[in-house]
């Protein structure tokens, strides 16, 4: 197992190196650039050329890439062209926001998705199954930003149950420890801050959860159906095991293998969904950083986000592979 993990980790290095080159070249091949994004209405040919010269963006691309690589190897991803702040610090500040949102969304999706998928499979063809299939179709089809605006219009504006956006109310003075506002409130015993943060989390997390929820339900349903028809389940049933034991020990456990792969893959989708959810809910997380960076051609921020994103993705998939070994003892790594 250790050798497997080490081998996979070593494979990450050339992957990231190649990716960094592709990202670097791709960003610079797109039309526009940070100079005109910064200047806006005041862009003139001289000013654009001058900013490009001072920032070194007029140099040959391999020279720029060499410099970039040199800095990245020392852990310096540079400063954001939008804010002038070091991008790693920006990502460090924004990451807890996105993690908090994504984790809650994933928890909601898993907590609802697996039981719903299981129920649908158990009652295949029945009203529960049909309702679930239609519900998940809608879940996949409704754009997350549209759902976000709807949730806000109803629960924040109309009913006033939840705040419409942001992570904390302006008048709540919370001490920053980890950047995870819910957790910080608990750590510092500022429970009002935790509750306030949780109330801000609900609507965006529900909106974001619809993306993985629909997928998890469908995969669980399909997987359970598949397992229910297999020989070992028939054997287990015929040898007189209690239905509950068959369900929990044989069906669910085997059915969860593809589901766990799906959950791992959902992390990537969650980040993509977070871009839209964060925009609608003014969340100030990684999605917001990414969206602003794309609009305003913030090369340093985009490079850092894409590379770190890829690293996270690779690591999450490694964890998924490891989880196979835990869920299914037959898998040997």
């Amino acid at each position, binding site marked *: 197992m250790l050798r497997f993990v080490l081998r996979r980790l070593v494979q990450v290095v050339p992957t990231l190196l190649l990716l960094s080159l592709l990202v670097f070249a791709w960003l610079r091949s*797109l*039309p*526009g650039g*940070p100079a*005109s994004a910064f*200047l*806006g*209405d*005041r*862009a*003139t*040919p*001289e*000013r*654009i*050329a*001058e*900013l490009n010269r*001072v*920032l*070194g963006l007029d140099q040959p691309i391999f020279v720029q890439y060499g*410099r970039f690589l040199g800095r990245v190897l020392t852990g*310096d*991803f*540079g400063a954001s062209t939008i*804010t*002038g*702040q070091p991008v790693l610090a920006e990502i460090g*500040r924004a990451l807890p*926001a996105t993690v908090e949102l994504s984790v809650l969304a994933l928890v909601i999706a898993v*907590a*609802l998705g697996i*039981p719903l998928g299981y129920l649908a499979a158990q009652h295949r063809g029945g009203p529960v199954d049909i309702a679930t299939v239609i519900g998940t179709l809608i879940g996949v089809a409704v754009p997350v930003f549209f759902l976000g*605006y709807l949730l*806000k219009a109803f629960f*924040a504006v109309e009913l*006033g*149950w*939840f*705040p*419409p*956006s*942001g*992570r*904390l*109310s*302006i*008048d709540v003075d919370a001490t920053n420890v980890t950047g995870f506002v819910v957790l910080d409130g608990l750590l510092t015993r500022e429970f009002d801050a935790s509750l*306030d943060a*949780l*109330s801000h989390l*609900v609507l965006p997390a529900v909106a974001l959860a619809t993306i993985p929820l629909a997928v998890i339900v469908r995969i669980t349903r399909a997987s359970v159906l598949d397992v229910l028809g297999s020989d070992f389940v028939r054997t287990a049933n015929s040898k007189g095991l209690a239905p509950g034991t068959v369900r929990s020990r044989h069906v669910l456990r085997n059915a969860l293998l593809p589901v766990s792969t799906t959950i791992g893959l959902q992390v990537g989708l969650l980040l993509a969904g977070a871009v839209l959810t964060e*925009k*609608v*809910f*003014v969340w*100030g997380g990684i999605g917001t950083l990414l969206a*602003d960076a794309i609009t305003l*051609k913030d090369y*340093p921020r985009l490079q850092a986000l894409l590379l770190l994103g890829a690293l996270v993705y690779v690591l999450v998939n490694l964890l998924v592979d490891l989880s196979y070994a835990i869920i299914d003892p037959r898998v040997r790594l």
Partner: protein
Amino acid sequence: MSALVAAAALAVTLAACATSEREDGAGEGGAGGSGGTLVFGAPGAPDNFDPLFAQDGETFRPARQMFDTLVTYKQGTSDLEGGLATEWTPNADFTEWTFTLREGVKFHDGTDFNAEAVCFNFNRWVNLPNAAAQTQAIYYSDTFEGFTSNQASATGTPVYNSCTAPDPATAVVKLNKAKGAFPAAFGLTSLSMSSPAALQQYDADKVEQSGEAFTYGAYATDHPTGTGPFKFESFDRTSNVITLARNDDYWGEKAKVEKLIFKVIPDENARKQELQAGTIDGYDLPSPADWESLESEGFQVLVRPVFNILYLGINQKNNPALQDLRVRQAIAYATDRESLVRTQLPEGAVVATQFLPETVDGYAADLQPIPYDPEKAKQLLAEAGQSNLTVNFYYPTEVSRPYMPNPTNIFTALAENLRQAGITVNPVPQPWAGGYLDSVTANGTHDLHLLGWTGDYNDAGNFVGTFFGRNKPEFGLTDPAIFSEIATADSTVDPAGHTAAYEQVNRDLMTKYLPAVPVSSSPPALVVREGVSGLIPSPLTDERFYTVSKG
């Protein structure tokens, strides 16, 4: 199912919590129109807090609350009035300005504002040490044209020569040449007075290139120190909230609210929902489509007087057919700007007769709008031998500007007009910062394009000089006669002569050159909730919040 029950229970608890906060939370201001906190939704975050390095409205907004300029603009207008100077007098040839300064004024750090401080600021600007800093001082270099040691795109001799302080209340600024932009340009927010002590203590000039970005000294990020009605308190970069506190020692009318918070909410719909939910007291740039519904919900939509221009640009270099004045006139006759203003632009928008709004000195009142006349357009095209004219019409996406709330709709209407006149239009949409600005301002790959300008101060040169003062890839206009005419108007410094010279420039631009088609001027708006009073919409988007109170 237990998860569902738990989630429902949690939701109810949180909802109760959130509701109780709404009842006594951020929406509350304080009694009697004095005190409390005003929360205003801003569409973007400031780049930094040093006005010298500011160049967009979102950076200017907080700076305008914290800093003062020598002269300023009377609230709600572009007219000049005293700021930190009570009088400003030029010498005979307008190359020397004597400022009589307000006495007893202190910077936020407790140091004195006086003539020495004025000279320190002027000398700081002209002596910016490196290319990084000079590229960021955009308004300064536009106005003063150069630095002691030019390291960036400014190449000229600085307009500024020297500053002397014969006594603490008198500052004399000597210029190398007269310039028509003065005295109005002395009111630019970028030329605000900063505390010399704070500038030095917090490395204000330390702008550095770091990788592919610029980083600023601590003065610009955390210690802006002016004389204005509000003081800097904090900028929470995680939640994008800027907090300013009332300056109780302000020399003028003290601010009515104790705290002024700018909450950055880039999404327009999100700003509206925050206002409706009561978590902010107002916001900037409500979509014109929402004005009516916001008013019917009891909010106050404050429409700014128009001070911008949208034009249909024509690039003569890229398409030789456009070098013929008759073809450019045909494009003007073909466009139904009356309908465009009526159907696509907000209430209060007007058809432009020239390249500046009516309120700017130098506006030629005798100019009439070119009428919509597609037959005349066809006739002119035929005369020019261009009945089969084809144009690449560039327009921006992913952007909304005060002069151009919805570029795609405006393009669609204008393109249809051109087609009616027999012109074949190739639409070229490009993202604003993803190619459009480079294409139309630097590379000149377009034939027609949409762009505009919001004025910085009341001077015709700030409009027509910016557009047509020299050869630019945007228009491919090469006639030296118009450049020289504009330069002469700019250097004509006696106010009556200056105005008359620009009136003639505008007449000539519309009748002899027509380098573009002026389309419209549109008013951007602000919106505040009921009970918020004293916010005066400014044509220059120069709103000052010290007069604002909450009922």
